[in-house]
């Protein structure tokens, strides 16, 4: 294997693993903040116990997110130095702003929050967790702006053999970034809502602290319902935006080969990229792709054959991850609606509770699928239309990349096993005192 392939593997491992912890940070911080606010408002000790119990799980998750995030910032320099040289003028500043304007606040105040229960007034303590929640979302905003630049570069000029910043506002306010932010952050809320509902369901199935976990479940339910509907609807606009900005990705998502008007969507497809067609396709919905992409059933949608073979993304990956993500998105909406109907009879609904328990991993899977689709769908480009991934890799010996990739796999494997098992143990113990 060469350094390129190994570096791509290493980056995939590092990002996907990091993104197992980010979504819960984004959403659970808000839920804990709401719990603590309710405590400050009502002085009901159950809300305090909720904030402490969910906060304890939050902190285990948070620390793994932090340490794996540091790796990512340095990966660009270690493994993608040609990329860093080429776009650092634009991309580097976004990462630096993220650290300065958001991550500092998040990391400083999480320490004050975790250790400061007895040192601050309840109100000041509550403000800390709100600031942590706000800062973690703001962190995500800057990182997603940086990713959006890779997906759809704007606001730059090519000068001195590199992409130099020309219009900062264009970079940070571009539609691609806004749509990406509006999809990714609420998807973290879906993860968090399902996490809280799933763990609460486990306790409710055992009739453990029923009031405590019913309250927790319902808070999760509000977040889960709003977020899963929003993410789904928003995803549509994001896909439509691709029709114009990354047509090859959109075509790959739907395994759409031929440029045509009234382009259909097939519910199930098995693409065969070698022969530039689908080996299998079932359930044709005529005109739907045109409708989704251009809000017009007669619109023409570009097919994959319009793009030279070497500029097509790996179609089956993009197609499969997209379809699975959408199916999961439908499941999140259905199951939360079901819970809304049974909201006052939760303990009498074991099937519902069990479904929620087993659904805990699904939003995590959906997030990973979404990222794989977005990043693989951009291939062969690292910066869409500007720089190929194969031109971006560092001139380091493949053996170094190989050793460190194995190192990451072992370390992250252990870290994930320990982190999640500690979260599970803490979750099962339930609220202390």
């Amino acid at each position, binding site marked *: 294997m060469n350094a390129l392939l190994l570096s791509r593997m290493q980056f995939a491992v590092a990002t996907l693993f990091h993104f197992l912890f980010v979504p819960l940070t984004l959403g659970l911080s808000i839920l804990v903040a709401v719990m603590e606010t309710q405590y400050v408002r009502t002085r009901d000790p159950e809300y305090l116990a909720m904030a402490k119990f969910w906060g304890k799980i939050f902190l285990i998750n948070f620390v793994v997110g932090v340490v794996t995030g540091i790796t990512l910032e*340095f990966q660009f*320099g270690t493994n993608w130095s040609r990329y860093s040289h080429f776009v650092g003028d634009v991309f*580097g500043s976004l990462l630096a702003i993220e650290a*300065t304007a958001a991550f500092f606040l998040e990391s400083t105040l999480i320490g004050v929050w*975790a*250790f400061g229960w007895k040192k601050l007034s309840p109100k000041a303590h509550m403000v800390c967790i709100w600031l942590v929640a706000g800062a973690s979302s703001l962190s995500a905003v800057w990182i997603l702006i940086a990713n959006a630049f890779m997906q759809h570069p704007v606001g730059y000029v090519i000068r001195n053999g590199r992409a130099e910043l020309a219009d900062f506002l264009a970079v940070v306010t571009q539609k691609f970034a806004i749509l990406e932010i509006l999809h990714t952050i609420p998807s973290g809320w879906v993860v968090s809502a399902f996490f809280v509902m799933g763990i609460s369901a486990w306790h409710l199935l055992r009739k453990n602290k029923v009031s405590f976990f019913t309250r927790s479940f319902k808070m999760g339910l509000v977040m889960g319902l709003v977020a899963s509907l929003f993410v789904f609807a928003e995803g549509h606009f994001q896909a439509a935006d691709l029709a114009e900005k990354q047509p090859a990705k959109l075509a790959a998502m739907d395994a759409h080969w031929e440029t045509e008007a009234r382009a259909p969507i097939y519910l199930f497809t098995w693409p065969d990229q070698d022969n530039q067609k689908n080996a299998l396709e079932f359930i044709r919905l005529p005109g739907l792709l045109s409708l989704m992409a251009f809000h017009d059933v007669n619109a023409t949608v570009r097919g994959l054959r319009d793009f030279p073979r070497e500029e097509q993304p790996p179609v089956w990956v993009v197609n499969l991850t997209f379809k699975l993500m959408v199916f999961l998105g439908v499941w999140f909406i259905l199951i939360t609606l079901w819970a809304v109907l049974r909201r006052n009879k939760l303990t009498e609904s074991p099937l519902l509770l069990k479904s929620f328990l087993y659904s805990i991993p699904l939003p995590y899977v959906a997030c990973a699928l979404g990222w794989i689709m977005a990043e693989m769908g951009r291939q062969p480009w690292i910066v869409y239309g500007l720089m190929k991934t194969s031109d971006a890799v560092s001139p380091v010996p493949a053996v170094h990349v190989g050793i460190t990739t194995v*190192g990451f796999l072992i370390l992250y494997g252990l870290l994930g096993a320990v982190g999640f098992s500690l979260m599970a143990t803490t979750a099962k113990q339930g609220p202390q005192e």
Partner: protein
Amino acid sequence: MDLASVWFFLWGLLWAVYFATGGFDLGAGMLLPFLGKSEEDKAVIANAVGPLWDGNEVWLLTAGGVTFAAFPTVYAVMFSALYLPLMLILFGLIIRGVAFEFRGKKDSPGWKRTWDACLFVGSLLPALLLGVAFANLFASVPIDGGGIFHGTILTLLTPYGLLGGLLFVVLFLLHGSFWLSLRSEGELRDRAFKTGKLLWPVALFAAACFLLLSYFSTDLFARYFAHPVLLLVPLAAVAALLMVRVYLKKESPGMAWAFSGLTIVLCTFFGVIGMYPNLIASSLSPDFSLNVTNGSSSPLTLLIMLGVAAVFVPLVIAYQAWAYKIFFHPVQKDDMHY
């Protein structure tokens, strides 16, 4: 001074602040197996840095981010040339970060021993390797015109590089021992303070050797001899270290901690000033060196980043000072989270 040069010194300052803040939590991590005689002591040590290590580590992230933003070419070359040491630093930071949070989660001695070992190794590796890396940057690195590193990890382990690593380790241990003594009581406090006393002459000796070897192994002093007034910086570093001795005598760990931090900042600046205008000097040919002119970002990026730094860095300092103030006294039973 031009914008890129302003950023050069801000870049140096960010690294220096990371070494001075992260330095004591790395030091405390290395000291834990030696100073923690009982399980209670070890818990106090972990909780002593618990509220602050994460905020401290963001200075490292910001220093890295600013290298990327202000000197993208330098970031690209530096991080790929120092590939393996950097990865080891990252592995270290990962295992020690989670060790803080995880060690108290189970009561089994084997579990605790494992994470204490992670804390030790994970604190020692970054301290040592950051020292080695910066000593090499203070000297020179075999990079060619394409920014490709011609050497192995052993190339970096010159006597000067190793001395740099040793100096960082000793200074961080010293710095950490004062932090632990100001955040603990009774025997642990005394043990930590005594450790500081024992370490001080070692630190002085290491710093003196480093200054001396800098004269023979690097060109740092060329800049100082051209502008002798700059010699005040290494002199101030030595003076700060002497002030540590003064406060050791007065049994004041807080002030000793402040001056050991200042020593670290000034030691870093001794190198940074000597490097200017190079960020990475090439040992193959001066033509291949990366400096503030050929390694920096466009003026627009530098200007925007300066605006961002001018607004946010003072804010960060303000709320971090507030956080430090909250925890600037011995750890109590009811403010332990770990």
